[in-house]
């Protein structure tokens, strides 16, 4: 029974990685393939957010708990990845805010936020 569980766990481990990778790629695909500037920014934040999983999941420890030292617990998950990702989240939202400000200005200057149309107007 435990063997079976272990095996299941092992294959799920790979599958979990693959889904994480799928999320990263889907975000990147939106950024590269789509033309709408706001949609690209949404894709960019999905791309960034999915990367967080690559950091947080190795920090988890079996039987571990939240890294807040308290009596009765001995095993804690690694706090370092959490700190790094907190910083990354903040950087991500700062980039989003700035990107949206630029998009608003582009809308005012060009009358559109479709990248294709903008290049058609100014660069031919």
């Amino acid at each position, binding site marked *: 029974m435990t063997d079976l569980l272990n095996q299941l766990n092992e294959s799920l481990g790979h599958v979990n990685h693959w889904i994480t990778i799928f999320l990263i790629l889907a975000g990147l695909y939106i950024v590269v393939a789509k033309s709408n500037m706001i949609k690209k920014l949404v894709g960019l934040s999905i791309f960034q957010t999915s990367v967080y999983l690559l950091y947080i999941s190795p920090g988890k420890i079996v039987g571990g708990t939240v890294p807040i030292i308290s009596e009765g617990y001995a095993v804690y998950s690694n706090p370092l990845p959490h700190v790094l990702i907190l910083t990354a*989240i903040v950087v991500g939202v700062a980039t989003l805010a700035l990107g949206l400000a630029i998009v608003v200005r582009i809308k005012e200057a060009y009358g559109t936020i479709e990248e294709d149309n903008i290049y058609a107007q100014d660069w031919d």
Partner: protein
Amino acid sequence: MINFILLIFLAAVTLGIVGLRNLFAIVVLSGGYSFVMATLLIVMDAVDVGMTEAAVGAGVSTVLLLSALHLTSTETGPSKHSNLLPLALVILIGAALIYGTWDLPMYGDPETPVHRHVGPYYLENSVRQTTIPNVVTSVLASYRGYDTLGETAVIFTAGIGVMMLLRGRRKKSDAGGAGQGD
């Protein structure tokens, strides 16, 4: 197992975002994405990160996106160019990632370098050296406090930057470059 279900959920939401054309729906879905992500992070013991992701991803980002939609438009146009090149690029990067993560230690394995080096130092010393039991806080503000100063500087940059870009008078600048846009 919970992770797996939540990840499937995230994948479904992401597929929705890829396919949709209505920006309003996309923004709402991306807020939902952040909520599910926050849950997943909490399942992995990252409570601080989960809380922040919920507040930032589902809260701040959604408000920002909605106010930007208000100032621009809510429908995306059709994509004119071919999707083959982006798809090829993405598959290439995906292959590199699958290659790179193939041999990574199992999820939750306590014997990995991550759990043997540096990390344990904080868990062992935080209370003695800083009196702070929440190790995430002590690492964030003290052991790696300099990163957090940098992070504060990033927010500061974004704040001033947004004000610089959007505070000027609204005026159409012309294409020639001779005009005095603001």
